[in-house]
Each structure stands twice: as structure tokens, then as C-alpha cells.
């Protein structure tokens, strides 16, 4: 029996590229850096169906998954705080980078995550310092150096991410018509963190983002306030099925 034999769930139909959710990520670790994107800049990166809200925070997430339902890989997300329905706020997933093709296709095809492949590195903690990078097509599009702080955060940082759904614009192009997608949906997912073993504040020492004609991080990150701080977490992560917030397919 093939590893992901769920007939007609994903392609190829007899031995799909990935299994159905939930996906489990035991002993994951991540650095989460908060930043503040100016409203006008943020509007440029949000779909028109979502309302830009300047604050409380936007976030960059660099994670290492030593194992998961689809195997080990690393991941980076850029999240923009927004309103997705009147009075309901979430984190729009602007970009995700991953190091594994199964994670790429599952993310795009199930939840609608805007994933691309890249090289992602998250250092071990050494002398209270941590370093994360995302490189793609010979450009270091994200490079973050941070220091772990002794004081514990004044708020449960895991609540800051778990408190908001991740909002995606799931787009599937039409095989016959290039002018409109065959599927366009706003989707939402709530990630869960369990068995948290480490939760520390981070002081961001530097964030650099090199311009690349293939990616859009640098304009956002170089135009934002990046000294807000962040946190480092080690936990078990669960990614369940998502929900359709709004079907925009016409």
C-alpha cells in the first residue's frame, strides 16, 4: 500500500502527493517576529475583499518541523492583520515558503496557502541568539537576527497567533480561460499549539530583505516598522481542515 493511498483525494489519484488533514507537527520550533506595516502599504498586498487594519501586529514566522504528517520540512509565513468580516479580524497569509514539495502542493490545493519553494534555515539557539533566513533564486529575501530575552512576555504569545484565524485567498486557474479563476475562495484555518515547552520573548536585532524580481517581501518588510519584538516557541502544532469564509467564484 502506498503511503498516501486515499483514492481520488489528491493527484496522482492512486497514490496522492499528500494525505487529508489534520496534519500534526510534533516538537516544532519557530521564531515569530512582529512588525507593523503602514496601512497604505498593507492595502497593496491584501485582496480587495479584506479590509486593511494597521495594527496591532503583522508577523513573520520561521519554523522548523523535525517531523510532520508529511515528513520534515521548514516553513516561513508572512501574515498581515486584517478584517475579513465585519468585526472579525484575522491574519491574511500573504506568502508562505516551504522546503518540501508535498507541503507545497497540500498547502496550495487543500487550504489555498500561497506557497512557493525556497531554502529556509532556522539556527539553534546559541548564546541566547537565533538566526533565520529564507533564500530563493539566489536572493536572501528574509534574514532575521534576534536575541532571546530573560523577561517573559507580558501576554501569552501563543494566544496572539492562535487567537486569529489564518485567512487565505484560494485561487485555482481555469484550464480554458486565463482571465478568471475556476475557483476563488476566502478560506480560514485555525492552527493549534499544544504541549508548549518553550515560550520566550525575542528582541529583534535586525531584519533584512533583499529585493528579488520573483518575490514581494522586500517592499513590505523594508517599508515597515520592524522593532516590535517577537517570540520563540517550541510546541506540537496541529493544522486541521479549514473553512470557506466566502466563495468568490463567479
Amino acid at each position, binding site marked *: 500500500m502506498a503511503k498516501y493511498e486515499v483514492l481520488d483525494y489528491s493527484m496522482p489519484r492512486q497514490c496522492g502527493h499528500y494525505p487529508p488533514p489534520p496534519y500534526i507537527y510534533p516538537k516544532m520550533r519557530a521564531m515569530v517576529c*512582529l512588525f*507593523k506595516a503602514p496601512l497604505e502599504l498593507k492595502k497593496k498586498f491584501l485582496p480587495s475583499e479584506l479590509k486593511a*487594519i494597521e*495594527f*496591532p*501586529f503583522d508577523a513573520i514566522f520561521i519554523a522548523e518541523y523535525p517531523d510532520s504528517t508529511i515528513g520534515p520540512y521548514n516553513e516561513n509565513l508572512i501574515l498581515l492583520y486584517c478584517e475579513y468580516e465585519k*468585526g472579525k*479580524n484575522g491574519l491574511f497569509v500573504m506568502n508562505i515558503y516551504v522546503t518540501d514539495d508535498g507541503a507545497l502542493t497540500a498547502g496550495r490545493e487543500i487550504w489555498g496557502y500561497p506557497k512557493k519553494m525556497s531554502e529556509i534555515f532556522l539556527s539553534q539557539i546559541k548564546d541566547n541568539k537565533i538566526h533565520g533566513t529564507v533564500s530563493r533564486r539566489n536572493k536572501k529575501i528574509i534574514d532575521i537576527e534576534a536575541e532571546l*530575552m530573560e*523577561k*517573559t*512576555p*507580558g*501576554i*501569552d*504569545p501563543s*494566544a*496572539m497567533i492562535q*487567537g*486569529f484565524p489564518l485567512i487565505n485567498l484560494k485561487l485555482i486557474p481555469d484550464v480554458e480561460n486565463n482571465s478568471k479563476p475556476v475557483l476563488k475562495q476566502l478560506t480560514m484555518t485555525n492552527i493549534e499549539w499544544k504541549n508548549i515547552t518553550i515560550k520566550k*520573548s*525575542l*528582541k529583534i536585532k535586525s531584519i533584512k530583505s533583499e529585493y528579488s524580481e520573483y518575490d514581494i517581501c522586500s517592499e513590505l518588510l523594508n517599508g515597515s516598522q520592524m*522593532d*516590535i*519584538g*517577537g*517570540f520563540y516557541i517550541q510546541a506540537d502544532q496541529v493544522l486541521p481542515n479549514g473553512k470557506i469564509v466566502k466563495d468568490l467564484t463567479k
Partner: protein
Amino acid sequence: MVSFEDIKEIGQKWTKEYCKALNESPEYEEAAKGWGIDFEGSMLFIMLPSGEINFEIVSFLDLKDGKCLGIKLLEPGEDPPREPGMILKAPMLIWKKLAFKEMNPVQALMSGDLQLEGDMSLAMKYSQAAMMLADLTEKTDRSLFTKFDLGDD
């Protein structure tokens, strides 16, 4: 050394102005709509000793559905009128930085300078209102934070 009596008048003036600023902000009213309806919406602001102020300054904020029903500066040792739904605690110097926008609330929370106690899911749901609580201190006479030497970091 400064005593509570020295700050009482200026503190009471600040609580009145702050409550007025909240009630005159349509943005705060919109963001905090529903706050305190099915749960305890009151908050306690605890300003911990800094510099020449060697006692805690505690204010009880009665907040409900986007409105400020009143703010009471508590006397030393006085209990709040009821158990608050949320507590925000920081040294007076940090409150000063927040009031003058030298630091934003998320920065203060992440660095551990500002401590938030209460239901995190509510804090997240109403995070826009929380940001406005900080922003609206700008509309008050902030001499409570400048009149006394609060020391350095």
C-alpha cells in the same frame, strides 16, 4: 519622596479626562462594541513604582459596550469596586512611554515591560480597542507622567 496625596488631584483629573476621551472617540466605541456585555468588562491599570514614586497608582476602569462608565483612582490599599475582567500592570515609566507613544503596547507586552492578566481570547478579539485605549491617552493632560521624576530604564 512623593506621597499619594501629592498625585491624588492630578491623578483624578487624568482619570476624568481619560474617560471623556474614550467616550468622545467614535473609533473606540466601534472597536469596543460588545465589550463587557456578557462578561466583566472592567479593567485595572496598575502603575508600579518608578523613580521618586515608590507606591502603586491603581485605577479602576468601568468599560462597557464601547463606553467608559467611569474611572476611579483607588486610594492606597483600597479594593476595586468589583473583580476586574482584565489587569494591565507596568512600571510608571513604561506607562509614560505608552502615553507619549515612545513605545507601543504590543512592543511593551512582548518585551515583558507591560503585563496583561485576563482572558487572552477576549484581549485578542478586542485588540483594536486595546490599541485605542493606549492611543487615547494622547488626548489627556499627561502631566501625571511628567510632573515627577520617574527615573531611567
